């Protein structure tokens, strides 16, 4: 693996403090290589968004980081320096944000200020980060950025509500790349879009990444999308990482029953139609998690052990897995059952 840009260890996040605290992210450890794409898959409430907002310190109250460390390595080759994200003060964070880490949200309509023209957003980001001395210079840069995502420069004079959903998301991506950041966080950027638009944006993202070399954390509930886009995939359930692997490995041989269930939740686009079952039950509420492995009430392989203690995340080569039933044949066994 290449040199890492983001290192996260034993990272935990709570909502609230004291008796009513709810743990939303539990003891997450991972690292992200330079120019690498990490996909985080999971359903609502799995903690995937909480994790990245916690790391960037953008998580809103009552979110509180309870343990762990997170550091970002920035700077040119040869003069790299590591910044501790969790002890950084407001000034350091401000200098870091957008220039080194930028964010794209699911709904670009709500992420863009509704009363300002698109051009203003670009102008502001460039100006406050000291790029482009004159207004005209910044305007030229903004046009260049829009062209990069296939939009005409007249969009700069529009308001967000005057663009289509796909155009708005493209604007967000162009904006996120405006300062050539080292890391771009994409929080379900295509979930609200149509399939065809999603396809266009995914293709564009792949191409841009190859060209510009930024690292990316891509959050979605759609595993198959991640398989196409990411090098590494991390699957989360109820605040914990349950499986982590290279995307091709994960797709070929998913080993956690939840991962298997997730993959079985998407009917295939080709082949014979076989009845599929998804995963029984519903995702648990964080406020009342089951004992032991949080997945055990929904797991077809659950044994008594699973309800007693939570399986640790065991690293094995390039894979990590948190399951007591970790034989490679899980998938076959599950398929026989369903």
């Amino acid at each position, binding site marked *: 693996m290449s040199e890492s840009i983001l290192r996260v260890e034993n990272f935990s996040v709570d909502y609230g403090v004291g008796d009513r605290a709810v743990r939303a992210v539990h003891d997450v450890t991972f690292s992200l290589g330079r120019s690498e794409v990490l996909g985080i898959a999971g359903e609502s409430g799995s903690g995937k968004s909480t994790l990245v907002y916690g790391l960037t310190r953008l998580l809103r109250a009552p979110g509180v980081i309870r343990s762990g460390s997170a550091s970002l390595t920035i700077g040119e080759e040869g003069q790299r320096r590591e910044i501790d994200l969790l002890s950084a003060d407001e000034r350091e964070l*401000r200098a870091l944000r*957008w220039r080194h880490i930028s964010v794209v949200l699911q709904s670009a309509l709500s*992420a863009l200020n509704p009363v300002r023209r698109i051009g203003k957003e670009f102008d502001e980001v460039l100006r406050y980060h000291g790029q482009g001395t004159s207004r005209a210079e910044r305007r030229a840069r903004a046009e260049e950025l829009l062209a990069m995502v296939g939009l005409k420069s007249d969009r700069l004079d529009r308001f967000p509500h005057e663009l289509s959903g796909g155009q708005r998301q493209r604007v967000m991506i162009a904006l996120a790349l405006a300062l050539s950041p080292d890391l771009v966080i994409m929080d379900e950027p295509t979930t609200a879009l149509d399939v065809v638009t999603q396809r266009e944006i995914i293709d564009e993202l792949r191409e841009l990444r190859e060209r510009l070399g930024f690292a990316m954390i891509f959050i979605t509930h759609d595993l198959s999308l991640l398989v196409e886009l990411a090098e590494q995939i991390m699957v989360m359930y109820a605040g914990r990482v349950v499986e982590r692997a290279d995307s091709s490995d994960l797709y070929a041989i998913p080993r956690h029953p939840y991962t298997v269930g997730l993959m079985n939740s998407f009917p295939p686009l080709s082949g014979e139609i076989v009845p599929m079952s998804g995963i029984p039950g519903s995702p648990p509420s964080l406020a009342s998690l089951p004992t032991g492995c949080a997945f055990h009430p929904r797991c077809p392989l659950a044994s008594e052990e699973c309800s007693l203690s939570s399986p640790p995340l065991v690293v094995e080569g390039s894979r990590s897995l948190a399951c007591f039933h970790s034989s490679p044949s899980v998938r076959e066994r599950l398929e026989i059952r369903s």
Partner: protein
Amino acid sequence: MRVLLRRFGVYLLTAWVAITANFFLPRLMPGNPIASLIGKLTGQVTPQEVRSIQLQFGVGLHSSIWQQYWDYWVNLFHGQLGTSITLSASVSSVLASQIYWTLGLIGVATVLSFVFGTALGALLGWTRGARTDSLIPLATFFQATPYFFLGSVMVLVLSNNLHWFPDLGAYDPNATPGFNWGFIASLIRYGELPVLSILLSSMAGWMLGMRNMMVTVIGEDFVLMAVAKGLPRRRVIWHAARNAVLPSVANFALAIGLLVSGALLVELVFNYPGVGNLLLNATLNEDYPLLQGIFLIITLTVLGANLIADVLYFWLDPRTRTPVTQ
């Protein structure tokens, strides 16, 4: 544009309603107030004046009510609002001499109140949860306190007892009215306390409204994005405030009416010249022509202020200009 034209239509209609109410109210009220007024006036004023009141209110006239209504409009367009009974002068000239006081005092106070109240509300909303929150009950108290009470107590304490501010009135009786520095300085000096009292009682409304909106807007994604973009804090607050102020501007219509109502009392409390004082005197003396004229002027002024607020809103919120695409 369409929205704006619609609003303008509403205001035209409102003006029409106010003018028509002015015409019909004295004619349709139970107990016939005008007839009893004329009864009282007989012998006190010249027969011409009685005649002019009769003409204006249609007592003892033989023309139909619709003809009177038409004449009323014609007179209105010629700026003829009748003759004041108590002041023995044409209502329009009385109003013309007094309206500047009111416009000046209330105008300045309204603008200051909106600006300070909104700015303070934005800050309160931003620092929500901090100790500044304890300002809220205090502000609520001021908001709930009747204006005339607050004003009177302020006069008592700040002016009579502490002598921080000059006595009642609009300017130093020794100053010579005119465009000279001495007079202007005394105008400002005498205006301080009235303006301050209006601010205290009306700022709270803007402040609380803005705070609530600010808290709501801070929850929006684009504010979080402004932080994520590494913008300085004042810039982030600006992003939020720019959106949070919209409902305040939209509510101007309601607020301005209430504000003007409350502020009319300021003239009474401070013995300040202006339309408010005129209104009260007209009411107490049953000077109906003057009363009508004042109500008309106040309504038209409030409508004008509303229109300005609407134009401002239209300019501030692009979504009113073009329809939202899906």
